[in-house]
């Protein structure tokens, strides 16, 4: 999942003709000031931190400016703020519009109906979760034949738009539908969508692109989204790797087994700190690579849980032993392994000769991992 920052989402919107405020991106206070001074951003304007986590309004990261000097001051105040560990490095400066009502509009996937869905509410500008269900309209859209005029009419009715404003919504929905399909988006969200005179303007933009469609969209390969540094490295190497709050590193194969392993560790009093899903690979080189990435996250102990179905336990063991050799002595950590299934005996032997204990009992070995992590707080 690639989360786009507001300015990135808006540049996608611009390509498809979604109406936006005039605006520019600045990466320094000086740049913010000159954008305003040069008339590239009209005054008065709004200066917004470009971070992926919410709550920037309350956090003082959205400010207004009526002069170039005020724009500089606002930029200085915002740049460098931190939101859930994410530093503000970019600002979006936009003209401040005189807006009427604020609406909510999004397009995403309804997994149960297996269809795209339009979510619309006349109560925009607030967190949509806080709006009562009765005031939120949901309608699915069939990819064949695509978005139709009666779906657009229903959205207009829900949003209280008629005449020129409804026609403006028509065009906006056509554009959003194209963004959703052609950009392989998981989510396209505008909140607030502002009524400005006879038309509509997207004041914010939240766009999430699906990772799996990367082969169609090399342009998003460089967008980091809200990944940590190590997660970003993992993504480049195609390794499923997520950092959590605890101290036990978990390596397993398959998302379900990985989650089940976390469940077991937590049940036994442990605190998983990273999880790494090897997926279907048992290529020793890939295992080594994954393990070294895990080492960079500095876990207190690592628990390896492999069920060898297609995966060969001995191949995984080989990669693991190779990786342990490459970790410097002062950075080593206890490794507890539980391997089972395909070539289990061979794998156990390879681990044993490298001094790594392994069992085939999930509960017992998970307990050992929890104990090991406690032993080195």
């Amino acid at each position, binding site marked *: *999942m690639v989360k786009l920052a507001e300015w990135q989402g808006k540049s996608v919107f611009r390509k498809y003709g979604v109406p936006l405020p005039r605006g520019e991106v600045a990466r320094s206070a000086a740049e913010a000031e000159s954008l305003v001074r040069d008339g590239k951003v009209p005054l008065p304007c709004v200066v917004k931190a470009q971070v992926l986590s919410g709550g920037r309004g309350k956090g003082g990261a959205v400010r207004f400016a009526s002069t170039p000097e005020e724009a500089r001051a606002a930029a200085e105040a915002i740049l460098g703020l931190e939101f859930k560990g994410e530093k503000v490095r970019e600002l979006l400066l936009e003209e401040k519009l005189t807006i009427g009502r604020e609406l909510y509009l*999004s397009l*995403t*996937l*309804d*997994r*149960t109906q*297996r*269809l*795209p*869905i339009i*979510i619309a509410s006349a109560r925009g500008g607030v967190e*949509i*979760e806080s709006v009562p*269900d009765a005031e*939120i309209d*949901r309608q699915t859209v*069939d*990819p*064949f034949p695509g978005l139709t005029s009666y779906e657009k009419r229903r959205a207009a009715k829900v949003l209280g738009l008629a005449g020129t404003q409804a026609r403006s919504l028509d065009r906006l929905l056509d554009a959003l539908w194209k963004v959703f*399909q052609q950009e*392989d988006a*998981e*989510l396209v*969200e505008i909140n607030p969508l502002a009524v400005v005179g006879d038309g509509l303007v997207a004041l914010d933009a*939240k766009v*999430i692109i*699906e*990772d*799996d*469609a990367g*082969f*169609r969209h090399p342009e998003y390969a460089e967008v980091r989204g809200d990944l940590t540094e190590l997660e970003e490295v993992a993504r480049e190497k195609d390794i499923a790797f*997520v950092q*959590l709050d605890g101290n036990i590193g978990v390596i*397993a*194969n*398959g*998302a*379900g*087994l990985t*989650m*089940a392993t*976390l*469940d*077991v*560790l*937590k*049940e036994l009093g442990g605190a*998983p700190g990273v999880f790494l899903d090897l*997926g*279907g690979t048992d290529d020793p080189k890939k295992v080594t690579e994954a393990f070294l990435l895990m080492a960079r996250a500095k876990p207190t102990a690592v628990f390896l849980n492999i*069920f*060898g*179905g*297609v*995966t060969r336990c001995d191949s995984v063991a080989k990669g693991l032993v190779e990786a342990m050799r490459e970790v410097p002595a002062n950075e080593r950590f206890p490794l507890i392994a539980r391997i*089972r*299934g*395909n070539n289990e005996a061979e794998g156990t032997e390879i681990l044993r000769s490298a001094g790594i204990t392994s069992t085939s009992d999930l509960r017992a070995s998970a307990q050992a991992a929890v104990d090991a992590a406690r032993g080195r707080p």
Partner: protein
Amino acid sequence: MSVLVDRDTRVVVQGITGHQGTVHAREMRLFGTSVVAGVTPGKAGTEVEGVPVFDSVRDAVEATHANASSIFVPAPYARDALLEAVDAGIRLCVVVTEHIPFHDMLVMYHYARSKGTRIIGPNCPGIASPGASKVGIIPNVVFRPGRIGVISRSGTLTYEIVSGIKETGLGQSTCIGLGGDPVVGTTFVDALPLFEADPDTDALVMVGEIGGTAEEDAAEYIRHHFTKPVVAYIAGRSAPPGKRMGHAGAIITRGKGTAQTKVAALEAAGARVARLPYEIPTLVGEAVRSARR
């Protein structure tokens, strides 16, 4: 009897000349599946593991009367591979390929549905009925013929659990790995009626995951229509809420989609819910005894 596959299932392996295709064509044969054809464009006339290769699914069906397909082609080509199978008249497609964009899968699902083709997957282990047939990649060794049905959204975790069932001395009637992608061709609700109708299934194990509302929907179905004992496990109880699909996702699932809501719904529907995977075999034993009563 069994669910969806049987001794008359004749499998064409799409992407048979790739590594995975070749390996699993062999494994399916070893399981006892009639693997009658492979398809790789441009490779017609060759053989893989003794299986004749064709340029198109249509050619394969004409020559071998294949009636099920196992798809291993890489994600960028998976959409068209599935459509090709549907157009060639295949009515059961197991899509093993992972990382298929969900926008592609939407097209695949709705097109297949309009033609009466069932998709299992994508990104799934497939389906197996010990003693009858296997289409997909579930390891042969975990099985033993029996009367426990299994439906799961997971891959390896399924093998682990099926294997655990085997160790208790019980066996499986049919096991379906649905795949964990956002859009799957067959959901719990789609699969449950098949097991309800299957005279060879006494009890059902259901392995779910956090995310989506497939388990809640299944619970609703079980409560009203499913009469056999159910043992369930939901993986991810302790997983972080983490990387959600924005606010819109929350609006769709509103009040559902967590391990807690899934467990509660399943318990309310009368299922025995395991807290941890290794509790499943015990619960299955209880379930089977209750079914015999």
